[in-house]
């Protein structure tokens, strides 16, 4: 079930009604767990067995770790959990990829081997719930948290429907304690939750699916090289699409949880307002980047072992982070590019101290009486944002392209290396992509150090009402339901 479907409205209404009926808290948790299983089974019922398997094995392995003092046995229980979870992920997500690469490797050695295609269907959200449940067993193994005693609370932690299939990847210590005591939304919280869901749906349905997806699908679906303007239009469209699609989902998830009285961590913080790539990864898919930091980068040694190992650790983390997104070498290159950016940024930042800017001199020349005052600081921030955004767009080419041929064609086109290439994007396409992307970058720039709630607090209620009315009306007008979120496939 997706948030942007009509059936979800009915489903969510029933869940909310049941949650606010005068039942004991345990019954309400059972209701939530049942609803979460229905939510998941509505895609492909048999895959719910994988979810159960993961839940049962991790619960018992963690319980055994809790009572066992022998370190070797504790490690064995952790390995069982890792093998099961990563094994399922490897089979369902990377099975065909591994087989293809194995065949290619044999072919490289002159051995002709024709494997039967595996034809595996990817269970929705497997990467998300695998990482979420792994964080639990690893934390119990590290004795960061005690093993959970209530199977119901643990099952609900693994399965909680708002964030089950596309995150945010919630940590056990953030969510499980919330199931211990009755949680309900106050009227204000509930209204805020609904408002977040409208915002998330607007981002997904109106901006990502209606305005941007058709253009990015067009350009990335072409078998031939295109004109530079077309290439940039397509890449920018995808850049906006993937942000609005994924951040839209996270916003809906946070809103849905809030309506039920639960808090889920923020997953995006205006990432296209980032200056540099450390900043970008503090703003993009925060729950995933912090997971990589805590369970991969730091265990590898992090930045504690000198410069060269730090760079190697960064690269390994980002390459694996890339592979997490999909079973294709293009995702690995995407991660690798981010790793290279991070390494270069560390090299530059580590080698020089920031100089104070001649604020007054420049400000005297530039016009101040604007909506966004043109100061040296603002200019520097904007240039930093635009340069980071430019580099991020280069990486999206690999993320979205079906293969390296398409990626290289698009990159060549973006830098004007293909003369007389095809023009495919219409005036309407170019106009809407440029306007939407300019708006997104502008909003991210202005909001990069701000908090949405504070901005709303300081804005007239009529303007807030008008903005939410426009978003709601646009949602109704878009008339599009049921398209999957991009990150479901990851």
């Amino acid at each position: 079930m997706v948030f942007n479907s009509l059936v979800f409205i009915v489903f969510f209404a029933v869940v909310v009604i049941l949650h606010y009926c005068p039942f004991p808290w345990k019954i309400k948790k059972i209701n939530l767990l049942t609803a979460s299983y229905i939510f998941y089974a509505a895609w492909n019922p048999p895959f719910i067995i994988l979810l159960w398997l993961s839940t049962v094995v991790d619960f018992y392995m963690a319980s055994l770790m809790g009572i066992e003092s022998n370190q070797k046995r504790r490690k064995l229980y952790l390995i069982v959990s890792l093998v099961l979870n990563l094994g399922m992920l490897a089979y369902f997500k990377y099975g065909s990829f591994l087989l293809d690469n194995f065949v290619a490797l044999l072919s490289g050695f002159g051995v002709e081997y024709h494997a039967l295609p595996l034809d595996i269907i990817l269970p929705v959200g497997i990467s998300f719930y695998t990482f979420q449940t792994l964080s639990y067993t690893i934390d119990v193994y590290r004795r960061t948290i005690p093993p959970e005693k209530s199977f119901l609370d643990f099952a609900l932690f693994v399965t909680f429907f708002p964030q089950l299939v596309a995150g945010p990847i919630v940590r056990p210590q953030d969510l499980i304690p919330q199931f211990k005591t009755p949680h309900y939304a106050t009227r204000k919280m509930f209204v805020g939750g609904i408002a977040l869901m409208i915002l998330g749906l607007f981002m997904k349905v109106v901006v990502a699916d209606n305005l941007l997806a058709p253009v990015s699908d067009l350009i990335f679906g072409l078998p031939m090289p295109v004109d530079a303007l077309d290439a940039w239009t397509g890449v920018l469209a995808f850049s906006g699409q993937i942000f609005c699609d994924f951040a839209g989902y996270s916003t809906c998830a946070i809103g849905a949880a809030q309506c039920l009285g639960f808090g889920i961590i923020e997953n995006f913080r205006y990432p296209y307002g980032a200056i540099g790539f450390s900043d970008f990864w503090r703003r993009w898919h925060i729950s995933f980047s912090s997971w990589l930091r805590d369970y991969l980068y730091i265990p590898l040694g992090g930045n504690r072992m000198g410069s060269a190992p730090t760079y190697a650790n960064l690269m390994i983390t980002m390459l694996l982070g890339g592979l997490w997104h999909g079973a294709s070498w293009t995702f690995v290159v995407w991660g690798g590019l981010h790793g290279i950016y991070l390494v270069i940024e560390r090299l530059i930042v580590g080698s020089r101290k920031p100089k104070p800017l001649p604020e007054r001199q420049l400000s005297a020349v530039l016009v101040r009486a604007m909506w966004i005052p043109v100061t040296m600081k603002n200019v520097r921030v904007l240039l930093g944002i635009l340069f980071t955004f430019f580099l991020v767009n280069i990486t999206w080419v690999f993320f979205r392209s079906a293969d390296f041929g398409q990626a290289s064609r698009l990159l060549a086109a973006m830098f004007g290396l293909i003369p007389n290439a095809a023009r495919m994007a219409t005036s309407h396409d170019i106009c809407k992509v440029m306007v939407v992307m300019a708006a997104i970058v502008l909003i991210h720039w202005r909001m990069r150090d701000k908090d949405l709630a504070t901005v709303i607090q300081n804005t007239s209620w009529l303007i807030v009402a008008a903005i939410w009315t426009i978003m709601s009306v646009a949602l109704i007008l878009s008339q599009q339901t049921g398209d999957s979120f991009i990150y479901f496939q990851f």
Partner: protein
Amino acid sequence: MEVPSHFSKAMLFALIATFSLACAWEIYWRQRDYPLSYNEDNAAWANARAKVDANDEPKMVIIGSSRGKFDVDLPALKQKTGFNPIQLSLHGSCPRPALVDLANDSLFTGTLLIDVMEPLFFAMPGIPPYTEIQKRVEYYSRWTPAQQASHKISRALESKLVFLDQEAISLNGLYTRTPMAPREGVWTFPVFPLGWAYVCADRQNKLSDAVLNSTEEQQKIRNVWMQLGMLNSHGGPGGDTLQFMFDVVKASIDKLKKRGVQVFFIRFPSTDVFLEAEHATFPRKMYWDRLLEYTQTPGIHFEDYPVLKKYKCPEGSHLSPADAIDFTKEVVEIMKRDKGWKTPDASM
């Protein structure tokens, strides 16, 4: 999100304003006599396709492009054949992917009517007429229970609200109608006049009264056909490409015939310059006659029967709803009389 103090008031206002604007929007379209039309999305096709697999009884299925949707009147077909027909045609699409899909579906028995609009029937793989129907076939194979439930709710809303017309008056539909200077060297998909046709609950299409009563509106649609290249003079595929298409069609039809499915090709009417262009680019001997001969399948070409030839398409390519009723009845008579079609009971 920490909820600001005045937020509830703003949200209440937004709720009332949204509801009021939605009502005003609905009233606006109703006052313009805009016809109520169902969406032609993936789920609508999948819903029709699912009827083929609903049970193992014989079915009457139509595949093809918009002519199959406009020119076959489903109630008339049901009345004349006793079958509850299933409309699987899709506007602007090639029927070959749907044919292959049905051939591979062992649950499908009965009768299959295939609309042959040559430029679409012989469309190359990889281009929209082919990929659009291919997408629907693939969508049906992974149609989730949640999507099925959403479709049911959506249909209930579409049956009541005129403004729920995804193709024409959605945000994207309205945006594409915004006048804007075309980009040099870029082909832009033409825009159909608003409300020129509508889709019924059973997926039959009908030309609207506004088109039937106005030659000016009819001319606007003719202009769209021209922009879509229906008067282009370059011919259809030939050589190995054409032979490959014939082979795929024959293989599928042989599979169907093995299961006892009765297959009929139908060439629906087109009028004046459009008919002339189709004759010129897809000569009958090379395509239609060869298709029937190679696949050993009966076909009904409207030009072969005076009772069918008399019909004129108001906008050059589709019959009026009234003519579609008579045309359908005549076609069934010909199928029974000349082409050996057996009634449902006899065919089992």
